[in-house]
């Protein structure tokens, strides 16, 4: 039963990858992942609700006397929660893709990649050691490359996929170095041994380990400074974005922090850094999301922002709240992405919100879904997002020394509400800017697209309420005044109101803002992060690689003292030697005489 949760997605990926043309993959992969989802529901019941964690040692992975690692599975409440999220969202994405990608000629490949992605993510969350986690970690990176690059004829998709892979690799190096240090400090990579050895480890080394682990999380979870791959990853098909940004890939970083929570607890510095980066990410992404015009990029930046919340709350040592928000966010973000896909599907692939509008009458169902998702994202009372988002801000305020995180988070909540309303308004409510032919053709999608939306909307409404007791049973709520408690909520309401006023009554205000080139350009281009990274890092490294290491060292110095230099030296000296043979007899005789006499004198001198 427990191994099946790994095996079925793998089988699904292999069958649809190799024999997909013959079998027809849509139904097969969808049903495989749905069965996995049901199994993971059972696992959740057994491990989380009944409190019986399960450990399975499958086979020896590494055995070098001093350092042993098994290929083992660990199912505890954290893992099973992640499993529920991953498999449910993945199953719905699979079902959705059968409708959304039905025109695509490469659907077996797509389904295979999706299943492989799910499998590797399950490997990541179920591992009981860091090495196995790393397999999943690299595997989801690889699958994100394959999926973003799914339409491989598009140069932008190629570039985005490479960017995703390479920026992730920066974080992966952090994770690898952390693993080396863990081996040096603890002599093992298993979570259970590490957490029991924590008291015997030097604090300084622990800080370094945690910083490196956090670097890994920063890359994977798209925190500030390594976030630039996330919005570019929108080049993939929409179900891919839903899978990457809602349930699987970006949550891996947060999962790593939660899993390494005992380590992070040992280092105050790292916790502060984590909160700092998380809060900044939330704020940064919220400001950027408010100035985007691409429907998917708005949602991508909101993902970035919500991940900032999750990381931020990890920094104040409330890992269960972070996991809770991760779960909730998975549901409503998948809903948002998939409904965005539905909208894009309806308007013939147009992604620019400025060229939509007025869709509310033609696709009311999708509108409802976007509304539910957005309200849940905003943290509207009694929807899923409300239970975790406001709690995060309260807990952050409870730690007085990093109270700025609270204010940054609250302001991001305002901006989140604002851009959610903006998204709804520009897409559905304002007068249409669509081409007339397209607008008349707008229609609800088929059942395979709407059914997952419906299920996810239930998730977005109910999951927070249903799971909050199981997830938050050991949370200590901070004692703070009710003004502070209510502030984030008031701010989000204010943001919504602001959005309504700006877009329904005074449209000129936002247009004026959009006309402001410096300010709007700054936010629209994500605080110029791409420019900064490209100009001050990538370009220099690129030039260094070409000029210094390639031209000067590889093709220069090493060639001269290496093959080419030796060859030229030999050629020249042999030419000189053979020039001695002038062809004239008297020279030969002279040489003969000189050397014979040298030989004789040398012999006499005893040389």
């Amino acid at each position, binding site marked *: 039963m427990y191994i099946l949760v790994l095996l079925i997605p793998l089988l699904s990926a292999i069958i649809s990858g190799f024999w997909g043309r013959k079998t027809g993959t849509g139904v097969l992969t969808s049903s495989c992942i749905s069965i996995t989802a049901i199994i993971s529901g059972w696992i959740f019941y057994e491990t989380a609700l009944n409190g019986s964690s399960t450990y399975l040692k499958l086979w020896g992975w590494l055995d070098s006397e001093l350092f042993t690692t098994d290929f083992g599975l660990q199912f505890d409440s954290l893992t099973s929660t992640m499993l529920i999220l991953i498999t449910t969202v993945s199953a719905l994405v699979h079902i959705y893709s059968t409708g959304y990608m039905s025109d695509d000629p490469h659907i077996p490949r797509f389904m295979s990649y999706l299943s492989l992605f799910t499998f590797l993510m399950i490997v990541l969350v179920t591992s009981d050691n860091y090495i196995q986690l790393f397999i999943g970690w690299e595997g989801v990176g690889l699958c994100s490359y394959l999926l973003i690059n799914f339409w491989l004829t598009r140069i932008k998709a190629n570039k985005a996929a490479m960017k995703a892979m390479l920026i992730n690799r920066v974080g992966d190096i952090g994770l690898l170095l952390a693993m080396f240090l863990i081996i040096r400090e603890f002599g093992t990579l298993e979570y259970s041994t590490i957490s029991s050895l924590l008291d015997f480890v030097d604090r300084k080394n622990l800080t370094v380990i945690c910083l490196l682990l956090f670097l890994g999380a920063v890359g994977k979870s798209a925190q500030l400074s390594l976030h630039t791959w996330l919005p570019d990853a929108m080049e993939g098909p929409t179900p891919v974005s839903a899978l990457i940004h809602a349930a699987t890939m970006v949550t891996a970083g947060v999962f790593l922090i939660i899993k390494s929570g005992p380590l992070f607890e040992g280092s105050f510095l790292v916790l502060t850094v984590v909160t700092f980066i998380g809060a900044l990410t939330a704020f940064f992404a919220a400001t950027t999301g408010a100035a985007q015009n691409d429907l998917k990029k708005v949602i991508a930046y909101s993902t970035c922002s919500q991940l900032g919340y999750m990381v931020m709350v990890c920094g104040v040592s409330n890992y269960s709240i972070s996991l809770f928000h991760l779960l909730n966010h998975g549901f409503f973000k998948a809903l948002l992405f998939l409904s965005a896909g539905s909208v894009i599907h309806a308007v013939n692939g147009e992604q620019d919100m400025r060229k939509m509008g007025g869709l509310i009458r033609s696709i009311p169902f999708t509108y409802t879904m976007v509304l539910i998702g957005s309200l849940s994202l905003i943290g509207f009372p009694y929807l899923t997002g409300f239970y975790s988002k406001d709690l995060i801000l309260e807990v952050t305020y409870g730690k007085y020394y990093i109270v700025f995180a609270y204010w940054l988070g609250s302001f991001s909540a305002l901006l989140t509400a604002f851009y959610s309303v903006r998204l709804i308004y520009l897409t559905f409510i304002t007068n249409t800017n669509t081409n007339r032919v397209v607008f008349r053709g707008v229609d609800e999608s088929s059942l395979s697209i709407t059914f997952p939306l419906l299920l996810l909307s239930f998730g977005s409404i109910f999951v927070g309420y249903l799971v909050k007791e199981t997830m938050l049973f050991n949370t200590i709520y901070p004692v703070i005044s009710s003004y502070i408690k209510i502030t984030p909520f008031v701010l989000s309401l204010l943001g919504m109101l602001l959005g309504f006023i700006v877009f329904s009554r005074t449209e000129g205000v936002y247009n004026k803002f959009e006309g402001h080139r410096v300010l709007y350009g700054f936010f629209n281009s994500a605080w110029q992060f791409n420019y900064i990274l490209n100009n001050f890092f990538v370009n220099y490294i690129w030039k260094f690689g070409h000029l210094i290491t390639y031209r000067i060292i590889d093709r220069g110095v090493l060639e001269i003292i290496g093959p080419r230099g030796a060859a030229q030296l030999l050629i020249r000296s042999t*030419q000189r*030697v*053979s*020039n*001695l*043979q*002038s*062809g*004239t*007899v*008297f020279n030969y*005789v*002279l040489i003969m*005489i000189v050397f014979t006499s040298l030989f004789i004198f040398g012999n006499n001198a005893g040389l």
Partner: protein
Amino acid sequence: MFYEYVAIGVVLFVIGGLGVVFNRSNIIIMLMSIELMLLAISFLFLINSVVADDLIGQIFAIMIVTVAAAESAIGLAVLVAYYRARGTIIVRSLNLLRGKIF
């Protein structure tokens, strides 16, 4: 007793060697210098056989004269054949087999 003649032999040998080295024009002079060197050597053999009171030196001298005669005969034959082919016997033009590549 006859040691002062050794110097004559050596001087003759050196003159023969120098004749080969410094001669750039005429190949016959070269052959003659070689003959001179051989004669100087057989002269030295003779001197030494007298000094050491030993016959082997004289036997060697006779053999060297024989070899020298044969050698000059073959050398002159080569010279004639060469002259037929090239039409000249200047030593400086004897440089077809150079070690230079270019």
